[in-house]
């Protein structure tokens, strides 16, 4: 019954999405406020129906209703309860439903917070959001219905893919989708502006918080995915340049660029056309990512060719939205008036360079991801584009970006003083050089790229701090005065510096992990020792453990420093019974900012077991840095001037109240 009702709710949501697509836009075209006002209640109702379907599917999973094909294929009655919740989106159909659910949430949020928007803009934005929702709801209903029944109902499910039976699944996809789909709002605003042929600084003020929100979620989502892969896949890598990862990093790069160009547009009324284009491109890359991941085209071109229904459907959606918006851009973009003039060396100029580098990075990732597919389709020539390509091509771009980053906030709007900025960064650069020299001394060298990366990373952090110190006049005025200035500094200024420091912190982590990790691959018998980076690991033996739906071999290690046991590590190898599929559960212990990482391999003859043991110095900085970035974003978002749905300025409200 739940399945049928949920299915029906999806159909109703689709119809409502169609209403939301056409009625408000039609109203905007005819300047009819009644028609335009239809958008909001319909957005709320649409959210209601999609939520019903989503939680309906969740109820089916929690109740282990194996008469539903989707539940049968991705669940098991013995699975831990938390995974019965998360398994909802651990499969194609359910994850598309989550996608649409998130979209509906954003639509409703626009309706809720958009009360102060000009009527026509709001109507058009809701219309575009409705169109996206309608397209994807139709996709679900036509090709990926999660509510199909099986007859007769199987007694037991086939279990969720063991790799997904992890808390990571609870966090990573929802965050990622909040990011991906959140960019749809910037897209909708861009298309709405093009429809109206009007765009101003107020538009940027509206788009920025939404873009920032999406960006924060996407940053955290990517970072969580990276940590999940790191501890789950068992060889200690944190980023693989897998096409699926690339699909998430492309919108991130474009979204980061958008965030910065929107600042120029808001403050200086410049870069309008470019900002609109970026808003379109960012969401287009989100859609492209959805296509790449969901069509199966990545697994192989052949897999796509044998069952192209889903792929072709998403491809049509892709062409309609990307093509449509770009055509609209080509036709109407030129009508948007250019504002604010600025010198090449200025805050605007720095943000333009930022945009150029980030766009180049996004284009590089896009090319690297699609090139093998295109080449195979065109010439039947098979090549691989793997991590070495991305590291080599993006490494220099990011180094340049981070090395220039501290200059940006120190330059004035309109016309900046590059020499002055460089002067103010002397201490920051000096500090970075000293740190690099110390590291060089203590590690007896390292790869050249790692050294350059370290320099850029530390400079990004010290540079960001310099900017803050500069603004609060630290050491130039008494501390109390500096403190007062710090309190008065707008939160968005804090946000910028903190986010900039965050990316520097992440880079330091990446450099330390790739440049100075230690590794031992050993075959160990119980009672044997391995030493790594000043730690002694004593292998004590292995025992068996059983979970609800798995059996595991758990190894036990004592970690000792100078003969004293400081920790124990219990890496395991699990076999999930329903699918007879093994997973590794690495044993990880954090010491300071570094981590000791042990992963078990095969049992060998004579009671020995092979193990991979890593010491990864400062590795946690990779993810801590992203959290710092997100915090910076949140601070910026909490700035009164940018707060979602910020009320009108007090003065205007006062003027609106009648005199007493």
């Amino acid at each position, binding site marked *: 019954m739940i399945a049928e009702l949920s299915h029906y709710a999806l159909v109703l949501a689709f119809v409502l999405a169609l209403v939301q697509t056409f009625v408000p836009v039609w109203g905007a075209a005819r300047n009819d406020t009644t028609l335009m006002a239809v958008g909001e209640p319909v957005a709320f109702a649409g959210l209601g129906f999609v939520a019903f379907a989503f939680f309906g599917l969740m109820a089916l999973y929690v109740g282990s209703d194996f008469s539903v094909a989707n539940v049968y294929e991705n669940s098991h009655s013995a699975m831990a309860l938390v995974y019965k919740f998360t398994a909802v989106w651990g499969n194609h159909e359910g994850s598309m439903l989550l996608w649409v659910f998130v979209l509906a949430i954003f639509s409703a949020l626009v309706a809720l917070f958009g009360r102060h928007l000009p009527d026509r803009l709001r109507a058009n934005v809701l219309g575009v959001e409705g169109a996206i929702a309608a397209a994807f709801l139709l996709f679900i209903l036509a090709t990926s219905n999660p509510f199909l029944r099986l007859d007769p109902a199987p007694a037991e499910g086939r279990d969720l893919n063991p790799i997904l039976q992890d808390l990571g699944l609870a966090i990573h996809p929802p965050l990622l989708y909040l990011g991906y789909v959140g960019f749809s709002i910037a897209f909708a605003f861009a298309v709405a502006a093009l429809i109206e042929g009007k765009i101003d600084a107020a538009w940027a003020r509206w788009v920025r918080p939404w873009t920032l929100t999406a960006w924060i979620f996407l940053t955290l989502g990517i970072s969580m995915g990276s940590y999940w892969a790191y501890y789950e896949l068992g060889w200690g890598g944190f980023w693989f340049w897998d*096409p699926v990862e690339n699909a998430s990093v492309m919108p991130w790069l474009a979204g980061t660029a958008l965030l910065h160009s929107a600042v120029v547009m808001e403050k200086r009324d410049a870069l309008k056309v470019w900002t609109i284009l970026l808003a379109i491109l960012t969401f287009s890359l989100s859609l492209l990512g959805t296509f790449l991941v969901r069509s199966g085209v990545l697994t192989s071109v052949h897999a796509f060719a044998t069952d192209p229904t889903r792929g072709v459907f998403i491809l049509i959606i892709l062409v309609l939205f990307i093509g449509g918006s770009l055509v609209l851009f080509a036709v109407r973009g030129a009508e948007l008036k250019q504002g604010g*003039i600025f010198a090449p060396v200025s805050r605007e100029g720095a943000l333009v360079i930022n945009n150029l580098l980030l*766009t180049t990075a996004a284009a590089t990732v896009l*090319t690297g991801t699609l090139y093998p597919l295109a080449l195979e389709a065109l010439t039947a*020539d*098979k090549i*691989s584009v793997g*991590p070495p390509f991305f590291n080599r091509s993006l490494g220099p771009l990011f180094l340049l970006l981070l090395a220039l980053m501290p200059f940006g906030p120190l330059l004035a709007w309109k016309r900046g003083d590059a020499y002055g900025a460089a002067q103010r960064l002397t201490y920051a650069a000096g500090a970075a050089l000293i740190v690099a020299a110390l590291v060089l001394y203590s590690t007896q060298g390292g790869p050249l790229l790692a050294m350059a990366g370290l320099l850029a990373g530390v400079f990004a952090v010290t540079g960001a701090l310099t900017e803050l110190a500069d603004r609060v006049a630290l050491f130039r005025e008494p501390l109390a005065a500096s403190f007062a200035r710090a309190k008065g500094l707008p939160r968005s200024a804090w946000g910028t510096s903190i986010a900039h420091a965050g990316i520097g912190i992440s880079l330091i982590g990446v450099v330390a992990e790739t440049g100075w990790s230690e590794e031992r691959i050993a075959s160990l018998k119980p009672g044997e020792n391995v030493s790594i980076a000043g730690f002694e690991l004593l292998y004590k033996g292995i025992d068996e453990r059983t979970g609800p739906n798995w059996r595991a071999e758990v190894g036990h290690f004592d970690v000792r420093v100078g003969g004293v046991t400081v920790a124990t590590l219990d890496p395991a190898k699990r076999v999930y019974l329903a699918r007879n599929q093994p997973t590794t559960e690495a044993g990880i212990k954090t010491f300071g900012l570094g981590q000791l990482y042990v992963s078990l391999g095969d049992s060998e003859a004579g009671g020995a077991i*092979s193990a991979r043991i890593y010491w990864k110095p400062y590795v946690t900085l990779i993810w801590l840095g992203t959290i710092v970035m997100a915090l910076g974003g949140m601070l910026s978002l909490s700035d009164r001037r940018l707060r979602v749905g910020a009320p009108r300025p007090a003065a205007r409200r006062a003027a609106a109240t009648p005199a007493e």
Partner: protein
Amino acid sequence: MRGLFLVLAFLLSLTPAFAVQPGEQLADPALEARARALSKNLRCMVCQNESIDESNAPLAKDLRILVRERIQAGDSDAAVREFLVARYGEFVLLEPRLRSRTLLLWGIPLLVLVIGGTALAISLSRRRQTHPKALSTAEKKRLDVLLRTNKKS
């Protein structure tokens, strides 16, 4: 037939094995380091985007041993790569070599940077040359009035 092979390869890749195993390693640390560096850039062809250094698949194990055999036989890194490409095609290299067919791939970053930069420079310099229009007489009069009233107050 080929499909069957892929299915088999997929199933085999699921049996628990391990990336580089202790027994596979070469005694000479310098040679072993070269083998590791090489394997990190070689693709395990039956896996999804994994190098033979990371992969648990039996094929990856075979390739790891093969790489070490070639190194012990005195091959240079380039010769080992050449040997594998001759056997398995360019697909085995995770870093595509610069050829006519990969020219665009390697060229894109530079191309976007140069074209984007040039377009920017042109549009910015053009915008900077457009001077704001002179005030019309009506506007001038209005400005005068405004300035005068400002002085009075």
